[in-house]
């Protein structure tokens, strides 16, 4: 896979976060600029964007997506994945990885509230934090206005 195709986006503060011993504890993967964008929003609100490594599936085959996620998981030693769309290619790639590694936890339909909950809990058990963050994300979704 060429470097031009392998697009790995880090949040703007990931380097500084690494300096302060905040290695990524989860991977955010999905379409287009969604991963980098939502991680930048986490950084803007919490200053903890470095908790996540953002990986876009843009321009990648299914095999390349899986390879990049697998490599990032090994590099960072993380087993928690957040993806955007339940039927998206990043989600399917993680599901493939789960076949070999049942320790992996996957959260799909990720929104900003989900990630914010995770970053404020992720100093302990990342898997437990991921599971709790799902509830926050679910209740954050609302509809206001005329019926």
């Amino acid at each position, binding site marked *: 896979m060429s470097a031009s195709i392998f697009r790995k986006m880090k949040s703007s503060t990931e380097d500084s976060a690494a300096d302060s011993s905040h290695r990524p504890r989860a991977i955010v993967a999905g379409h287009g600029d969604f991963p980098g964008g939502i991680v930048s929003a986490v950084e803007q609100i919490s200053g903890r964007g470095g908790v996540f490594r953002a990986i876009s599936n843009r*321009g990648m*085959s299914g095999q390349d997506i899986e390879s990049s996620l697998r490599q990032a998981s090994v590099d960072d030693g993380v087993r928690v994945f957040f993806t955007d*769309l*339940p039927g998206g290619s990043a989600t399917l790639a993680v599901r493939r990885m789960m076949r070999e590694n049942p320790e992996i936890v996957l959260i799909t339909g990720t929104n900003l509230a989900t990630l914010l909950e995770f970053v404020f809990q992720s100093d302990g058990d990342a898997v437990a934090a991921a599971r709790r963050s799902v509830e926050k994300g679910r209740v954050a979704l609302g509809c206001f206005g005329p019926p």
Partner: protein
Amino acid sequence: MPIVLYRIDDRLIHGQVVVGWGQPLDIDFIVLVDDNVACCDWEQDLYRMGVPPEMELIFADVAGAIRDHDKYASDHRKGILVTPDIPTMQRLVYGVPYIREVNVGGVHHRAGRTQKLRYVFLAADEEVQLRAMVESGVKVTAQDVPAAREVPMSEVLGDAEPEARTA
């Protein structure tokens, strides 16, 4: 015609297919034609998770898809047929003369392939296969999502000048 899109896409079931095309075309079923997936229950379970519950996902190998194409075509619902690669679609097209249009939606980078579009990379033998489909009378175009420009295969392969883009 119930199959409203014949698509080549190496990701098979993913956001562009299920949502990007599926919603505007009001799709009720997808036929996934892949010899490897057709014989693997685990792979099928994986792809089933990628479609909403109201959408039917049918798995077939190429021989089965050729055999059952009339059944898909007589379905009152609308569907998409997707193959993982160009050779699979070519075999299908040769087996089902009714297929007159093919969409190249995602053939991504791999060793030996050259980039043609942002989402289309082709090896020499794949170019030959696409040309053969075109010469057999099939309209072959590249288009990743409905809102994108439909790119004629002659332009993808460098046989024609790019059409003027519209805003």
